[in-house]
């Protein structure tokens, strides 16, 4: 932990600690220290540059959801002092929609969703970031539908021509972090599973997941049992049957007290040319940024089964790409 403040006992402690300090304890100004001046932050909705953009969006979020809590559920990490650490940080965030904002007039409704943030850190500073939050989960719990919400978002931004474009590789900028994770067997195992699923081997889920596996899908949907999990993965793949699947970052961990686990950042890049989770095929070019976490247990073939899975991609960003292409607002 060279160059990190000695208040942190280890890397997860740093990640959990600064998250609380910045967002819950309102140390927003500390972003000037903790976030690099020109940090690229990629989300499915776009690319933002620099800590001042993060500070502005943080204040907007807190203004709309003043009681927002961020519970760090896990930190799956790799790396070292020399090249930087990469933390794949899973959070549960809960809040009340108390003031008007990007989600419309204050509804007074509460939501609980998950977010996974992949952050690269070196010498006490976050310098590169990829973040996927369950935007569809917020929208649904606030009483709206993802498709209709994406339509209204495009309208509010001035129509399909003017609306800000969701993230695609074309607008990406290479950041300072160039790592791809580690070679731990649990990361490799989960990478193999996701690759098989994206190769349409949905039987793999029936044979290699715990029968009682629980998966948390976008839309804040808890899916129980390997059969329904298989169906939920199929509905995503089926909407983009010819898209190219890539794994960008892969971490496995077997640290004490936690189950063996993995964190993988991936993408699907192609066209919306099938019936599935996103309605009538439109031929829209779509990029899906995904981050998934998995935990393993002993209940499965040869004494290993996937027991918990956390799947994050952004339904709103997908609908936005589809609707901008179709001009259907």
């Amino acid at each position, binding site marked *: 932990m060279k160059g990190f403040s000695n208040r942190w*006992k280890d890397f*997860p*402690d740093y990640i*959990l600690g600064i998250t609380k300090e910045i967002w819950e304890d309102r140390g927003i100004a500390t972003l000037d220290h903790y976030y690099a001046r020109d940090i690229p932050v990629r989300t499915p909705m776009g690319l933002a540059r620099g800590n001042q953009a993060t500070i502005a969006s943080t204040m907007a979020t807190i203004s709309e959801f003043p009681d927002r*809590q961020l*519970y*760090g*559920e896990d930190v799956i990490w790799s790396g070292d002092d020399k090249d930087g650490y990469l933390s794949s940080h899973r*959070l*549960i965030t*809960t809040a009340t929609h108390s003031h008007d904002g990007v989600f419309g007039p204050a509804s007074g409704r509460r939501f*609980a969703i998950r977010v996974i943030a992949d952050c690269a850190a070196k010498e006490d500073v976050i310098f590169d970031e990829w973040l996927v939050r369950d935007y569809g989960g917020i929208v649904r719990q606030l009483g709206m539908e993802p498709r209709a919400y994406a339509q209204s978002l495009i309208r509010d931004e001035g129509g399909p021509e003017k609306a800000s474009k969701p993230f695609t590789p074309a607008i990406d900028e290479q950041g300072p972090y160039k790592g791809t994770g580690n070679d731990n067997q649990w990361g490799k195992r989960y990478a193999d599973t996701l690759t098989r699923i994206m190769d349409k081997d949905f039987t793999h889920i029936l044979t290699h997941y*715990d*029968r*009682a596996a629980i998966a948390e899908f976008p839309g804040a949907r*808890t899916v*129980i*049992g390997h059969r329904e999990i298989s169906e939920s993965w199929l509905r995503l793949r089926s909407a983009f049957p010819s898209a190219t699947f890539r794994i960008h970052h892969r971490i496995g961990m077997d*640290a*004490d*007290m*936690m*189950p*063996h686990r993995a964190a993988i950042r991936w993408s699907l890049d192609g066209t919306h040319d099938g019936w599935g989770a996103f309605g009538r095929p439109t031929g829209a070019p779509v990029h899906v940024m995904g981050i998934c976490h998995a935990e*393993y*247990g*002993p*209940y499965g073939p040869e*004494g*290993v089964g996937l027991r918990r899975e956390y799947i994050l991609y952004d339904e709103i960003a997908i609908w936005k790409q589809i609707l901008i292409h179709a001009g259907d607002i």
Partner: protein
Amino acid sequence: MKGFDPKWRDVPHFIIGITKEIWEDREIGSLRRRYAPGLIVRSPASVVVDNTRVIAATMATLAEFPDRELPGEDVIWCEDPARSTEETDAFLSSHRLICWATHSRPGMYGAPTGKRVTYRILADCALRSDAIYDEWLVRDQAAIVRQMGFDVEDWTRDLIAREGGPQNCVQPMTPENDVAGPYDGRGNDNEWGARLADILGRIMAAEMDVIPKSYDRAANLHHPGGKDVFGRAEADQFWMGLRAAFPDAEFRIDHVIGRDDLLMPPRAAVRWSLWGKHAGWGRFGRPTGAQVYVMGITHAEFGPFGADGGPVIRNEFTLIDETAIWKQILLQTGQHE
């Protein structure tokens, strides 16, 4: 696994395996050998003695829910040296199941609702000689009833009527109608069981400040009524609401298991009970003074993200049967009409 069919590798394999064979593969008749003669099955709803009635109850459930599946989510177990012999090893298994089924035929829950229900069961079974010979089981009846679209209290009132009224209906389990069985073990001495028992004991002693110290900020909680919630405030609300309803009831830790297994986080299974008056406002509405028995089972998985870097509860699964509690309240207050 001396004394058991050699096809079973270990206790989880045996428990998960026979559960599937009996319920999903329909080997219901095998209960005659897999449940020992005179087996006592205690649940909050009833005390059932002898395995022919278990077979009848199994068939009744499958008649009502023909497509029921019940995969095992975990088995937290311990050795039972006191009842091991030359012929057989002995164990106590605390089995957590997730069940899903369609309510497609009439039965104990009333006319079929067509609803798909998902709920958990926690079952403590004593095993030896390839059979289960003593059992304590808590099913999340409130989750089932709510998913069918009923109010738990109203459904329980109807149940009393369907069972023939207060005189004839099935009596919920209490220490007064419980039947002592052959298993009188208390579990094992593993530190994780002791830790969970200590946390529950402090909560029941109203030391609610133990919750922020002992639960992960992001703890996933699976509570009765099929409630899946997060965090310390929700833990506080559940336990506070329960204890507040029975503020003077005697709290007992009846059985404690802790385990460190490869591929699983450190974890624990504790069976506990409350026995006393419904004397406070809390989870069960206006205090009625009814004398109530609550059998609860809690499973917990520990993780490393405590405030002081110490171990804290990351996943908790607690079941009580709220219909059995309402039944006791309604029967004693005459509010069953």
